[in-house]
Protein backbone atom coordinates (compact mmCIF):
# COMPACT_ATOMS: atom_id res chain seq x y z
CA UNK A 1 0.00 0.00 0.00
CA UNK A 2 1.10 3.56 -0.64
CA UNK A 3 2.96 4.69 2.50
CA UNK A 4 0.78 7.74 3.01
CA UNK A 5 -2.33 5.57 2.96
CA UNK A 6 -0.75 3.41 5.67
CA UNK A 7 0.02 6.50 7.70
CA UNK A 8 -3.48 7.91 7.35
CA UNK A 9 -5.06 4.55 8.11
CA UNK A 10 -2.99 4.22 11.28
CA UNK A 11 -3.89 7.74 12.36
CA UNK A 12 -7.60 7.16 11.73
CA UNK A 13 -7.46 4.01 13.84
CA UNK A 14 -5.72 5.90 16.61
CA UNK A 15 -8.22 8.75 16.47
CA UNK A 16 -11.16 6.36 16.62
CA UNK A 17 -9.60 4.68 19.65
CA UNK A 18 -9.16 8.12 21.19
CA UNK A 19 -12.85 8.90 20.68
CA UNK A 20 -13.83 5.57 22.21
CA UNK A 21 -11.58 6.31 25.19
CA UNK A 22 -13.22 9.71 25.68
CA UNK A 23 -16.64 8.05 25.63
CA UNK A 24 -15.50 5.57 28.26
CA UNK A 25 -14.01 8.31 30.41
CA UNK A 26 -17.23 10.32 30.29
CA UNK A 27 -19.30 7.24 31.07
CA UNK A 28 -17.19 6.90 34.21
CA UNK A 29 -17.47 10.54 35.20
CA UNK A 30 -18.70 9.65 38.67
CA UNK A 31 -17.08 6.28 39.23
CA UNK A 32 -15.03 6.48 42.42
CA UNK A 33 -11.37 5.79 41.89
CA UNK A 34 -11.65 5.76 38.10
CA UNK A 35 -8.50 7.02 36.37
CA UNK A 36 -9.13 8.68 33.00
CA UNK A 37 -7.24 7.20 30.07
CA UNK A 38 -5.82 8.69 26.93
CA UNK A 39 -4.48 7.36 23.64
CA UNK A 40 -1.05 8.01 22.18
CA UNK A 41 -0.53 6.95 18.59
CA UNK A 42 1.52 9.98 17.60
CA UNK A 43 4.67 8.77 19.34
CA UNK A 44 4.83 5.37 17.64
CA UNK A 45 3.82 6.94 14.32
CA UNK A 46 6.54 9.60 14.60
CA UNK A 47 9.16 6.92 15.20
CA UNK A 48 7.98 4.88 12.22
CA UNK A 49 7.96 7.93 9.93
CA UNK A 50 11.44 8.93 11.06
CA UNK A 51 12.77 5.54 10.01
CA UNK A 52 11.07 5.75 6.64
CA UNK A 53 8.11 3.50 7.32
CA UNK A 54 4.53 4.52 6.65
CA UNK A 55 3.08 3.08 9.82
CA UNK A 56 4.29 1.34 12.97
CA UNK A 57 3.95 -2.36 13.59
CA UNK A 58 2.62 -1.72 17.08
CA UNK A 59 -0.83 -0.36 17.81
CA UNK A 60 -1.59 2.89 19.64
CA UNK A 61 -0.83 3.03 23.35
CA UNK A 62 -3.50 3.58 26.01
CA UNK A 63 -2.08 5.36 29.03
CA UNK A 64 -3.44 6.99 32.16
CA UNK A 65 -4.01 10.70 31.87
CA UNK A 66 -2.39 13.00 34.40
CA UNK A 67 -5.51 14.81 35.55
CA UNK A 68 -5.92 15.64 39.20
CA UNK A 69 -8.15 13.23 41.16
CA UNK A 70 -11.12 14.47 43.12
CA UNK A 71 -11.75 13.28 46.64
CA UNK A 72 -13.17 9.98 45.37
CA UNK A 73 -10.03 9.32 43.33
CA UNK A 74 -11.81 10.00 40.04
CA UNK A 75 -9.66 11.95 37.57
CA UNK A 76 -12.12 12.53 34.72
CA UNK A 77 -12.26 16.20 33.70
CA UNK A 78 -15.24 17.05 31.50
CA UNK A 79 -13.69 20.01 29.72
CA UNK A 80 -10.54 18.10 28.84
CA UNK A 81 -12.58 15.18 27.49
CA UNK A 82 -14.76 17.48 25.37
CA UNK A 83 -11.62 19.19 24.07
CA UNK A 84 -10.04 15.86 23.16
CA UNK A 85 -13.24 14.73 21.45
CA UNK A 86 -13.53 17.97 19.45
CA UNK A 87 -9.93 17.88 18.27
CA UNK A 88 -10.06 14.19 17.39
CA UNK A 89 -13.24 14.63 15.41
CA UNK A 90 -11.77 17.50 13.40
CA UNK A 91 -8.51 15.68 12.79
CA UNK A 92 -10.36 12.57 11.66
CA UNK A 93 -12.17 14.62 9.03
CA UNK A 94 -8.84 15.90 7.75
CA UNK A 95 -7.49 12.33 7.61
CA UNK A 96 -10.52 11.12 5.67
CA UNK A 97 -9.98 13.98 3.25
CA UNK A 98 -6.29 13.08 3.01
CA UNK A 99 -7.13 9.45 2.26
CA UNK A 100 -9.45 10.56 -0.54
CA UNK A 101 -6.82 12.96 -1.88
CA UNK A 102 -4.27 10.17 -2.25
CA UNK A 103 -6.66 7.62 -3.76
CA UNK A 104 -7.92 10.23 -6.23
CA UNK A 105 -4.35 11.02 -7.21
CA UNK A 106 -3.41 7.36 -7.64
CA UNK A 107 -6.51 6.68 -9.71
CA UNK A 108 -5.86 9.71 -11.93
CA UNK A 109 -2.25 8.70 -12.47
CA UNK A 110 -3.34 5.21 -13.46
CA UNK A 111 -5.65 6.71 -16.05
CA UNK A 112 -8.84 5.53 -14.38
CA UNK A 113 -11.67 7.84 -15.32
CA UNK A 114 -13.69 8.97 -12.32
Amino acid at each position, binding site marked *: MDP*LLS*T*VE*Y*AMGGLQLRLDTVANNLANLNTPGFVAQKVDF*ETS*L*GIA*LASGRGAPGVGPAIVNSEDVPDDTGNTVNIENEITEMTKSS*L*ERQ*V*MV*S*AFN*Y*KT*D*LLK*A*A*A*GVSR
Partner: protein
Amino acid sequence: MLPPISGVSGISASPGVSGGAKPAGFGDAITKGLDSVANIEAKADGLVSSMAAGKNVQISDVMAATSKANLGMSIVNEIRTRGLEAYQSIINTQV
Protein backbone atom coordinates in the same frame (compact mmCIF):
# COMPACT_ATOMS: atom_id res chain seq x y z
CA MET B 1 5.84 8.81 -7.00
CA LEU B 2 3.44 8.90 -9.89
CA PRO B 3 3.97 6.37 -12.67
CA PRO B 4 4.16 8.17 -16.00
CA ILE B 5 0.96 8.27 -18.03
CA SER B 6 1.40 5.82 -20.87
CA GLY B 7 0.88 6.78 -24.44
CA VAL B 8 1.89 10.37 -24.08
CA SER B 9 5.14 10.02 -25.88
CA GLY B 10 3.26 8.83 -28.96
CA ILE B 11 1.73 12.22 -29.48
CA SER B 12 4.15 13.77 -31.89
CA ALA B 13 3.83 14.05 -35.64
CA SER B 14 4.94 10.97 -37.47
CA PRO B 15 7.29 11.62 -40.37
CA GLY B 16 4.55 10.60 -42.80
CA VAL B 17 2.30 13.53 -42.05
CA SER B 18 3.11 16.14 -44.65
CA GLY B 19 3.21 19.79 -43.80
CA GLY B 20 2.37 19.14 -40.19
CA ALA B 21 4.46 20.99 -37.61
CA LYS B 22 5.78 18.51 -35.08
CA PRO B 23 3.96 19.16 -31.78
CA ALA B 24 7.14 18.39 -29.92
CA GLY B 25 6.07 20.63 -27.07
CA PHE B 26 3.08 18.51 -26.09
CA GLY B 27 4.93 15.62 -24.51
CA ASP B 28 7.10 18.12 -22.68
CA ALA B 29 4.07 19.94 -21.35
CA ILE B 30 2.67 16.72 -19.92
CA THR B 31 5.99 15.76 -18.35
CA LYS B 32 6.43 19.17 -16.80
CA GLY B 33 2.88 19.02 -15.50
CA LEU B 34 3.51 15.65 -13.90
CA ASP B 35 6.74 16.89 -12.33
CA SER B 36 4.88 19.83 -10.86
CA VAL B 37 2.16 17.57 -9.47
CA ALA B 38 4.75 15.20 -8.03
CA ASN B 39 6.30 18.18 -6.27
CA ILE B 40 3.03 19.34 -4.77
CA GLU B 41 2.16 15.74 -3.92
CA ALA B 42 5.38 15.31 -1.93
CA LYS B 43 4.67 18.48 -0.01
CA ALA B 44 1.07 17.44 0.67
CA ASP B 45 2.16 13.98 1.82
CA GLY B 46 4.65 15.57 4.20
CA LEU B 47 2.03 17.86 5.70
CA VAL B 48 -0.49 15.03 6.14
CA SER B 49 2.12 12.80 7.79
CA SER B 50 3.22 15.61 10.08
CA MET B 51 -0.32 16.30 11.19
CA ALA B 52 -0.93 12.58 11.76
CA ALA B 53 2.18 12.45 13.94
CA GLY B 54 0.92 15.35 16.04
CA LYS B 55 3.25 18.07 14.74
CA ASN B 56 2.42 21.75 14.51
CA VAL B 57 0.72 21.78 11.10
CA GLN B 58 -2.30 23.92 10.29
CA ILE B 59 -5.43 22.30 8.89
CA SER B 60 -5.68 24.99 6.19
CA ASP B 61 -2.16 24.16 4.95
CA VAL B 62 -2.96 20.46 4.69
CA MET B 63 -6.25 21.07 2.88
CA ALA B 64 -4.70 23.61 0.50
CA ALA B 65 -1.80 21.32 -0.43
CA THR B 66 -3.95 18.23 -1.04
CA SER B 67 -6.45 20.26 -3.06
CA LYS B 68 -3.70 21.76 -5.20
CA ALA B 69 -2.23 18.33 -5.89
CA ASN B 70 -5.58 16.93 -7.00
CA LEU B 71 -6.29 20.03 -9.05
CA GLY B 72 -2.91 19.83 -10.75
CA MET B 73 -3.47 16.17 -11.57
CA SER B 74 -6.91 16.92 -13.01
CA ILE B 75 -5.43 19.60 -15.23
CA VAL B 76 -2.67 17.32 -16.51
CA ASN B 77 -5.23 14.61 -17.20
CA GLU B 78 -7.43 17.09 -19.04
CA ILE B 79 -4.52 18.24 -21.19
CA ARG B 80 -3.70 14.63 -21.98
CA THR B 81 -7.29 13.83 -22.88
CA ARG B 82 -7.65 16.89 -25.08
CA GLY B 83 -4.31 16.17 -26.69
CA LEU B 84 -5.35 12.62 -27.50
CA GLU B 85 -8.63 13.86 -28.93
CA ALA B 86 -6.81 16.40 -31.09
CA TYR B 87 -4.38 13.73 -32.25
CA GLN B 88 -7.26 11.38 -33.07
CA SER B 89 -9.12 14.04 -35.03
CA ILE B 90 -5.98 14.90 -36.96
CA ILE B 91 -5.30 11.27 -37.78
CA ASN B 92 -8.89 10.69 -38.88
CA THR B 93 -9.04 13.77 -41.09
CA GLN B 94 -9.96 12.87 -44.62
CA VAL B 95 -7.29 14.21 -46.86
